[in-house]
């Protein structure tokens, strides 16, 4: 069944300019985000997942730059918009929640001022009273007492601040919320409550959420689909059920095996050998080949295409599922 596409990323490239050369942190990534889904984006530190998240809002400054690709959001290409038009979309249509709630609120501004500012930035005519009333309603919905709105960020706990961040994203009924490791600095109980809240909000507001995390357990908990990144490349994409049930890419397989498991029963936990490649000089061919347990000759020389695996709706970038490779392997044997 065809699903409604909210955000379509086409051949996105993001580069960091460094003295040693350009680092391509997001390399030719293409994927679609469906309306109303929770998409989990996982990968190791430095694999480009946060860079991708920021690129979706064109939030990069300084050394990082989007060097190619198209970002189709709700029928318009964000890459063609002016900075001013882009600022109008940020906050109103796309919201973002950052990793560390301790530092993502302005320490010298009261909570209510954050919300009022968000509302008034996009709806210039709103009076302070109206905006405050809306803010109160919103935070009560998220489980924060309205009296606490007049507090400063340092007077709130991490979980509360993270809820404030959500309320900022929801203040104008954003269609898409990009949550960049929102639970990393929360303890497990607050994390659970927070994920629960995200799930509820998705159902209630028809929100689309891109959840960026390195915790694959979090994705398993609430996401509908899973996207796995490795060294700036998308290596696997599919619905959670399929991906967790039968992961296709060896990297995904390794990730899942490395998750501590109650059924492990004294066995040693799986360890992936090697370390993530230096993106300044990525390995030739498949970027995972130096660490891949099932490496083939073709992997060392040619990059695998990102394609559907036959018989499933999962997509992966691995020669194992390509007929050319299978044939070559046979010849080799």
């Amino acid at each position, binding site marked *: 069944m065809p699903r409604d596409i909210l955000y379509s990323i086409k051949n996105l490239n993001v580069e960091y300019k460094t003295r040693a050369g350009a680092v391509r942190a997001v390399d030719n990534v293409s994927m679609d985000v469906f309306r109303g889904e929770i998409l989990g984006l996982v990968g190791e530190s430095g694999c480009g997942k946060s860079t991708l998240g920021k690129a979706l*809002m064109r*939030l990069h400054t300084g050394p990082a730059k989007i060097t190619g690709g198209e970002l189709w959001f709700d029928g318009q290409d964000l890459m063609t918009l002016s900075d001013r038009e882009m*600022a*109008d*979309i*940020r*906050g*109103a249509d796309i*919201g*973002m929640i*950052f*990793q*560390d709630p301790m*530092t*993502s*609120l*302005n*320490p*010298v*501004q*009261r909570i209510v*001022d954050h919300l009022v*500012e*968000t509302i008034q*930035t*996009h709806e210039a005519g709103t009076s302070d009273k109206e905006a405050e009333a809306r803010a109160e309603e919103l935070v009560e919905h998220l489980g924060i007492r309205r009296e606490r709105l*007049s*507090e*400063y960020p*340092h*007077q709130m706990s991490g979980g509360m601040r993270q809820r404030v*961040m959500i309320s*900022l*994203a929801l*203040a104008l009924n954003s269609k898409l919320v990009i949550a960049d490791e929102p639970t990393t600095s929360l303890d497990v109980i607050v994390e659970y409550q927070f994920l629960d809240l995200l799930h509820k909000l998705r159902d209630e507001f028809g929100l689309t959420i891109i959840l960026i995390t390195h915790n694959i357990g979090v994705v398993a908990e609430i996401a509908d689909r899973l996207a796995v990144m490795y060294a700036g490349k998308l290596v696997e994409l599919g619905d959670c059920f399929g991906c967790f049930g039968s992961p296709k890419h060896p990297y995904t397989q390794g990730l899942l095996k490395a998750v501590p498991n109650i059924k492990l029963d004294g066995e040693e936990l799986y360890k992936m050998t090697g370390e993530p490649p230096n993106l300044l000089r990525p390995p030739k061919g498949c970027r995972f080949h130096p660490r891949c347990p099932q490496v083939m000759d073709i992997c060392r020389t040619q990059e695998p295409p990102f394609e559907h695996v036959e018989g499933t709706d999962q997509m992966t970038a691995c020669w194992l599922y390509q007929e050319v490779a299978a044939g070559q392997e046979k010849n080799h044997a």
Partner: protein
Amino acid sequence: MATNKKEFPTPEEELAPWEQDLGQVGILRSALRARKWYGADWWFVAISMVMVAVFLIIAFFPAPFAPYGPNEIVGSSFLAPGETPPVPVLIIPQDSMVETLEDLAVPADSDRPSIAVEQGLPTSTALREQAQAIDDLLKDNPEGLRLRPRIERFNLLEDTLQAVVDGEVQAAVVQSTDFKVVSSQFPTLRQAESIMGDTATAGNFLLGTNDIGQDVFSRLIWGAQVALLIGFSSSIVALVLGVPLGLIAAFVGGALDRYLSLLMDSLYAFPGLILAIAITAILGPSVFNIIVAIAVVYIPTYYRIVRGQTFSVKEEIYVEAARSIGARRLEILRRYIFPNVIPSVAIIFSVNVADAILTGAGLSFLGLGLPPTIADWGIDLARGQRFIQTAWWLITFPGFAIMLVVLAFTLMGEGLMEIFNPKLRER
């Protein structure tokens, strides 16, 4: 159950709302509630605030505090603090009716009175001048009274006084301090009024007098005005120029930042006082030029601090978060970066006021500041420095005044930062 509840009251029941949250009360109450301020106990800051308040009151309303005008010559020079100046006084027999010099006036045709003085002392000059002055006033006297005393000179103090005892003269004029020493030898004599009138007898200057007989205390009081004017105006000018430049340079970055920083660093490379000297030397000495000179010296201080802070605040996640809600660049600068940068500016400002007062005093000290007719601590220091061995009070008190004001501003600045910065406020 009811008793239990009493024993464990919830905070809401026990405390007034403002006591639970200092963020909701005004500055005054939060200042009172704050137990500790930056680096010091609260009373430390309170004392500095009182000192600053006293300084401000004195600077704005010097007249009620200063006994004399800033340039008034009120007594003999080099009087030590509390010292009574010696005045020429009239010495007369115990039973004499004479009380003042004027009482010695007689009709023009009768015998002129004779007055004894000790030779070679300022008393004889004082007597002559004073008698002349009184005589001038008596010119139109209807009774024809004139005061033209014969002045008898003696070599010794004792001889001078003995002449009065012997009745050779009607009175003697000697220094009051001298008479005090020998008065026991002459029980039949008594001291009448000073021949100088009231001003000279007022005496007793709290902090002494300077080389030309001005009251040191009064000049200190009047000098507060100039110190405040120079300290505040130059710091405000430097702040108003330096802070926006630093903000914009760091926020915009690129070539603008490079050139501005180059300019500011070259200014900063000069020793402050030397640069100020150069500027006042070019512009000429006046209060306005001194303010300009000192302001130029301190602009780079603000610029550098604000630029550095802006660079670090700019990278904070909350600034990125602000962009993610679609805030405009100007809005980010105004609501996110500026308020987070300003606490460090407040600190520099208070230290800067103190510093500017010092630099202003330094300029005056070097003779590049204000004309000496203006009461200024720096000028007083410069003038007193020549007499450092004989009159310690000339430089000690202006020096203390500068030190106290500088200390008060520094402490208060740090205390105020504590109150205004919600991040550092202790609950």
